Structures are given as C-alpha cells and as structure tokens.
C-alpha cells in the first residue's frame, strides 16, 4: 500500500489518533480529522492517518506515504513546542480561535496562532528559520488566509 507499511509493522508506530490530547493542548481544539499535506511528497491525508512515534524524547509524526517527518512536538514542562515545517498544509476548518485558524500554504512559512494560557503555548518554526534558538518567542499575528 504505502512506503511505510512494511516498516510500520514496527510495533512502536501508532497513528494520529494517539496524539489527540497533545493536539488539543497545542491547538486548543480537536485536530485528528484535520487535513494535512506532506511537504516532501505531496500526499494528503487526515492527521489521524499519519504515522506517530511517541516513545522518544519528543513526538515525531511522519508521512505514511514517503516516511518524511511532517511534525515534531517537544514538551518541556508547561510548554509544548511544535515544528510543522514538514507540512505544506494543515487545515481544520471547524476550528476557530480568538486569533484565527492555523493554515500553512505553499510558499508561506508555517505559522500558528498561540494562546498564552497556563496550560499550553506553542512556538512554530518555519523551514526558513535559522537553527533553533532557545530564545524563540511566539508572535501574535493576524490570521493568514490563502
């Protein structure tokens, strides 16, 4: 079926359903049915169908078609940082936040709205960003729409 099927017999591999709670922490809403598009091979599928590796220093999410990393989540105490630069598109039209929706479009850098609640806080990297700087701060932005 897909490139990872043989390797996905690796019992460590779960799917996007397993990070439903984490996604609510980061995005503030249900995201497992969100539409994703892989930046490496262009495959589109619901987030729940991505391949998830949780038993690691962070949560790594890979494309089921080509195996490329599409998302990485690292939790440090009350903060979860998220790298979405492996996606060209992440869209959940039913999600509406105070500051807009998360949309990543081809040619745009990955951005996300953030909310500085006590329980979660997200920082996104764009593919064009310099290697991780520990002083990255979130930016409050107007929603971007394509």
């Amino acid at each position: 079926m897909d490139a990872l099927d043989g390797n996905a017999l690796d019992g460590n591999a779960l799917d996007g359903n397993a990070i439903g709670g984490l996604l609510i922490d980061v995005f503030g809403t249900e995201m497992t049915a969100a539409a994703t598009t892989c930046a490496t091979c262009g495959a589109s599928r619901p987030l729940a169908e991505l391949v998830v590796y949780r038993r690691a220093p962070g949560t790594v999410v890979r494309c089921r078609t080509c195996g490329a990393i599409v998302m990485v989540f690292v939790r440090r105490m009350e903060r979860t940082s998220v790298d979405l630069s492996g996606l060209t598109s992440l869209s959940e039209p039913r999600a509406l936040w105070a500051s807009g929706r998360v949309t990543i479009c081809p040619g745009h850098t990955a951005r996300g709205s953030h909310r500085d609640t006590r329980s979660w806080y997200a920082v996104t990297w764009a593919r064009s960003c310099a290697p991780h700087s520990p002083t990255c701060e979130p930016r409050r932005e107007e929603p971007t729409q394509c």
Partner: protein
Amino acid sequence: METTAIRGRLNWQAARVISVSWETASVATIELEPPDWAGHRAGQHVDVRLTAEDGYTAERSYSIASAPGEPLAITVERLEDGEVSPYLAGELRAGDELELRGPIGGYFVWGPSDGGPLTLLAGGSGVVPLRSMLRHRVSTRSGAQARLLYSARGWEDVIYRDELGQYGDGIRVSYTLTRSHPPGWTGHTGRIDSALLAEVAWPAGANPLAYICGPTSFVEAAAAGLVGLGYPPERVKTERFGATGGR
C-alpha cells in the same frame, strides 16, 4: 472570544470510580463518574493519568466502551509488563479517584448520520471502541447494517462475549481465533487475511464504511485487505494501539 467551555471539558479532572467488573481474566471494565462530563461520541477515548506519591506520573489513552448517553466506562486489558494497566485492571477499586481528560477524537468516530453499512474489524482490545459504536447503533435504532469481525487469541479472551452474542438483526458478529479454539469450534481460525475478509466483510459494492482497531500489525494487515477488496481508502478508518494493545 475564548472558548472556555471547550477548554473546561478537556482539562484533567478527578473521576470517581463507580465499579470495576471483569470481562475476562485480564480485562476489566471501569465505570467512571467525572464531575464535568458533557458526553462523548462513539469511538472516542480518554487520557488517563496516574500519579505516585513522589510525583512520578504515567499517562495512557483508553477507548470509551460505553455508548453516547450511557455512563462513562473504559475497558482495560492488563498487560504483563505494563505500567498503568496492571493498576487499572488489578488495583483500582470502586470509590477511588482516577484522573482523566476527554473525550478526545474527531476522526475515529461513528454516529447514525455517518450511515452504513459498517464493516468493523477488531484485533484484541481493539473491540472496545467498536463496541461503543454497536451499542450506539442499537440505542439509536439506526438502520445501519453492521458486520463485526473480531480477532482474538482464544475464546476466553473474547471481551463482551455475551453481549456480542445477543445483537439481533442488522448486526452480524464473526470471530477468528488465532492461537487456540474450543473443541467443536466451527468459527474461523488464524489471522485475518484477504480470503476471510472477502467472506465476512461487506463487499465494496455496498459502499460500506469501515472501522479497524487493534495492534498496529493487525490494523496494517486488515486495512490492506479491505483496500485490496476495493474499499476506497477514505472509507477505511483506522486506530492503532501499538504492539502491546495499549497506547
């Protein structure tokens, strides 16, 4: 505007354990009463968190076994080398408190408006969310026809055995036992494969909706089998439990 109502539903809360009852020698159903619960959809799960006295915590996810409208219940398989499951299915008692949050899940869910017919494939404890869907189908008197194929190691490992035998018209339940079967067993044996699916699952021409849940290797084989029968991939929904059946 802040969606505080949604956030409240998804914060951690201490649910009272109402009862612990045993489905099999190693599988328990735990009925829970969270103080702040707005209901759930069939197929969703809760995250559970245990905290030791020194602050050490362990979290796992468990599918909701009850149908929407019924009291919250989860079904837990005690795993030999598990960290959380031996506590939930072994130590936990009525009157205890259990920290949980939920319901979680927006993809692997079914409601009457999703229609049917339904092909439900369960590997081991993967039957739990599918049982929620079947109970929901029954209580809503949805017309959706359903076929459940349940793969278990042996007859003694089949969860909800009596209940699954009592569904009436419109729900057909088949079993395949992979490691042992009782004398005189006339059901299927061995792991699911294309031949078994061709015999038991809805044919693709019926435009069925499929839900597959269980260990990762089971889900991979079952999903490939249904796609091989002609099911469009977008009509096959999957939920993987990893190698050991828990998440």
